[in-house]
């Protein structure tokens, strides 16, 4: 799919006299360059990726990324190159290790936990017999009426 889009880009970008600012050997390389410059973080800026920053280090990183991509390196190789010099800080995707596992584990646990919570509460509320509560303004007949109406609706639809 990406091939389709960026081949569109490459074919149509050529026109009378204009020249792309950066030449790529293939649309995949262009896509990779774009992806990397959006995922690499400028180590000196106030939270910007290297695509948007004009700091010297960001410009240098962009140039280096371009060089490596044009040499044919893949995403992981370029990221490793940058991380070995500037640390994990410079990639917007956190590394996956036993400490950062919690980033994915906790949301998954939360979904499961909330499902369990619903089931537990539902069971507890069903079996609960309240002595008398100020909310029950009328005794059983209304509850029965409600059930009847629901039955009616169900039969109708």
């Amino acid at each position, binding site marked *: 799919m990406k091939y389709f889009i960026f081949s569109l880009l490459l074919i149509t970008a050529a*026109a009378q006299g204009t020249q792309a600012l950066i030449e790529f050997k293939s649309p995949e390389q262009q896509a990779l360059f774009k992806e990397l410059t959006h995922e690499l973080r400028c180590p000196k800026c106030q939270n910007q990726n290297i695509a948007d920053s004009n700091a010297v280090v960001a410009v240098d990183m962009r140039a280096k990324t371009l060089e490596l991509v044009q040499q044919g390196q893949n995403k992981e190789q370029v990221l490793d190159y940058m991380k070995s010099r500037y640390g994990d800080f410079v990639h917007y995707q956190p590394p996956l290790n036993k400490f950062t596992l919690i980033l994915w584990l906790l949301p998954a646990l939360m979904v499961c936990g909330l499902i369990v919570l619903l089931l537990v509460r539902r069971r507890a509320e069903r079996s609960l017999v309240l002595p008398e509560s100020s909310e029950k303004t009328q005794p059983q007949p209304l509850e029965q009426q409600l059930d009847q109406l629901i039955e009616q609706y169900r039969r109708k639809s």
Partner: protein
Amino acid sequence: MIAEYGQLALTFALCISLALAIVPLYGSFKGQQTALQLGNPLAYALFLLTAFSFWALSYAFWSNDFTVVYVATNSNTLLPWYYRLTAVWGGHEGSMLLWLLTLSGWIAAVAMFSRSLPLQFQGRILGVMGLIAVGFYAFVLFMSNPFMRSLPYFPVDGRDLNPLLQDFGMIIHPPMLYMGYVGFAVSFAFAIAALMGGKFDSTWARWARPWTLAAWMFLTLGIMLGSWWAYAELGWGGWWFWDPVENASFMPWLVGTALIHSLAVTEKRGTFKSWTVLLAIAAFSLSLLGAFLVRSGVLVSVHSFAADPDRGLYLLAFLLVVVGGSLLLYALRMNSVRSQARYELFSREVLLWGNNIFLLTATLVVLLGTLFPLVHKELGLGSISIGEPFFNQLFYYLVIPFALLLGLGPWVRWKQQQVQPLLKPMSLIAIATLILALGTLAAMQSIQANLALLGLLLGAWVGSSAIFELLQRLQQFGSVKQGLTKLNASHFGMTLAHIGFAVLVIGVAMTKTYSVETQVRMKAGEQVELAGYQFMLVEVYPLNGPNYKGEAAELDVSYKGDYVTHLHAEKRFYTVQRSVMTEAAVHARLSRDLYVALGESLSDDSWALSFYVKPFVRWIWLGGLLMALGGLIALCDKRYRRGASQKDAVKQKDSADA
């Protein structure tokens, strides 16, 4: 002199807020009517004094009073008058004053529109809001005073407003955002007041709902405006960056949305009570956490105000008192409240719980992504960054089950729903979904686009489900026409808001998949082609603005030979702050945006230009707008204007409503 009056008014306001915090609360516990009745006049006085103070600061900006330090750091004589007034909230101190104005505005609104509330309850709400106000007024007066003078020395001219903020977006985005942020204080106060009293009947939920909806509506608008503004202003076509400050506004929104839906269950069925109360506390707590993160310097952000650890300490202490105190009260008091309800596993209650599951997990994801780097570093494990790739990945997984449930939800009845009657409508919706999604992709000549396909499927599922359900409900009144007059506003609001969500999802998926861009070097007279559009650079000429210099580019755009529009892009150099700004040229249509940014001038008279064609990007903000509109319509529901004397047991027929 005006600035001094402004500060004086603020000082009086602090005293009033102290009275507001103490008197009605005292009256509510001792049963003293007079004390309780003082709540309203105190609230109005607070608002009037704060409004005057705000006016005083605005006047200082208007009249270019550079003896006031805050004015000198944020304004300039060359700044146009509308930006001079906007600069009032351009920096930390002034934006805090805007916060105070918004807070006192909501307090006054609660005083004005709570005739139907029992006086004791209303007194407690005003009291809690008064307590919050004391904390903030004290913060502004003692730690962030916008009225400080630098006399006897003062600059001849000011440092100018940051050029990035000299834009229409700055005029509306912060006020809307603050109305939302601060508005959740009202639901918070409702929750605390109820905890104090120990009563959580469904009337409590009915009273709390419109206030929550109103705050949610403003926050939705505020976030959408921020996104739109960043897109128009920053020059690279992006509309969300997962920056900590953006996340700080997104988290209360997610919890607020969960809260609205949980309140629906509590109002209609009397269950989920402890959950709703917790969410009400959480929504405002996240607003406060956001304020802390933005102003303390704990996180790195392009948006953050100048960091001051002293302010950070104060805000953290305030956070501990308000959030810690309320959660403690919750833990101590909530246990004695029980609800009893019976509902099957296939029922609206359960589906709304599903809504909460995914919204709150999304909140957790945003919270983790924003704060985990800090925790990781404090634990000595090193510095990591969490940004777009992480958030996109997790939201991708969360939005799918969420949207699927959303399409199903409005059809499912309270308490119990049989599967059989739903089979026909659901199949129809599924067919409509497939036709719409595949049809759109066929029209765009690409069936394989994965993200776009997914977005279209989910959006069409939610959207067509909402419309079909509405039609079916309207028909139950006899005919669609009859239904239009009879069906309550709540239902229309719900349908519109859900359609808005569908539109948003489609916009995001389509623009992410189909946006194309190119960066080229061009001379005047040359042309570039992108996605069928021809962009011709007509000329580039120098600019002279009120407080900037620069260059402007004129371009002609055609589509397959037919003339479309003329575009004007600028690159500005703001002389006082010495910063460069790109004013991108945008041609907006619902189907696509054309976006051109003028870059640097290169040797041999050519220019670097960036061109973007972004299909469906407007759908993102349209979706947000529809959601906010849906909230507004739901707010107008008649039942919120009913007196407390009327029973809620009326209208059993509405059992299928939201």
